[in-house]
């Protein structure tokens, strides 16, 4: 079982307590009523889905219930680091443990 570090509980917790919540750092357009359908679709549906380093939102749903962000390697499934929601996107190199 994977252990995921929750930045709010400040502890490694079993993966069963967590739920993935999609890609992180997607800003909702401020003028959402004015943008075109294509632009909306781009914001709403299109995700980067990279092979390798991915920034994701996770939720410690069966724990403190808080959303946080994680940097994960989609090839090895390893978590490189986790950080609180609202914090700046950190720069992490693939294969490096932050």
């Amino acid at each position, binding site marked *: *079982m994977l252990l995921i570090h929750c930045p*709010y*509980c400040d502890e490694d917790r*079993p993966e*069963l*307590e967590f739920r993935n919540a999609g890609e992180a750092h997607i800003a909702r357009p401020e003028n959402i009523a004015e943008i075109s359908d294509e632009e909306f679709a781009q914001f709403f549906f299109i995700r980067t889905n990279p092979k390798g380093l991915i920034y994701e939102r996770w939720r410690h749903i*069966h*724990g*403190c219930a*808080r959303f946080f962000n994680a940097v994960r390697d989609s090839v090895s499934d390893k978590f490189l680091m986790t950080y609180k929601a609202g914090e700046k996107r950190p720069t992490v190199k693939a294969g490096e443990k932050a």
Partner: protein
Amino acid sequence: MADASRIHPLAGRKVANPAVTLTPAEPAARLSLRARPDAVAALSKALGVKLPEMPKRSATSKSGGRAALWLGPDEWLVIDTAGGDPLADCAKVKALHSAVDISHRNTAILVEGKGAEATLSAGCPQDLSLTVFPVGACSRTILGKIEVVIWRTGETAFRVECWRSFSAYAFDFLEEAARDAPIAA
């Protein structure tokens, strides 16, 4: 007229083996309390329990009849087993907060004895050993297929808070796990 009486969801159930006993807890008043840091001091004063601000911590009132369990950075579970009314106490607080009475949403199972830790570990993925989960520690977590709040009230005593409608599942699960506890403990 129909006679309407409230029946404990685990009425009549009990497990006692040499290593572990399972007892349905007496009804208690419970609150789901949400508040920002600026309201914590006022709420603590009104409730008579200092709301813990560190993860996995719990605090009890001086008389021991009321406890506040840290569930999240702005979320607590308040349990009053002494017949008090924590909701009325919170209502006096002017600071912004949300207090919801969940006395009848939850019920609890007391797991006690030297096999208590082994019994819970059968279904809980968290490390419940004394070094990581000391007396007074509490956490919302998983037991088998359901979400529970586990609170360590003593070295070999736990209180498992679960939803009322899930309590039959929780009790059955713990009953089965308790059979193996004498071997594991």
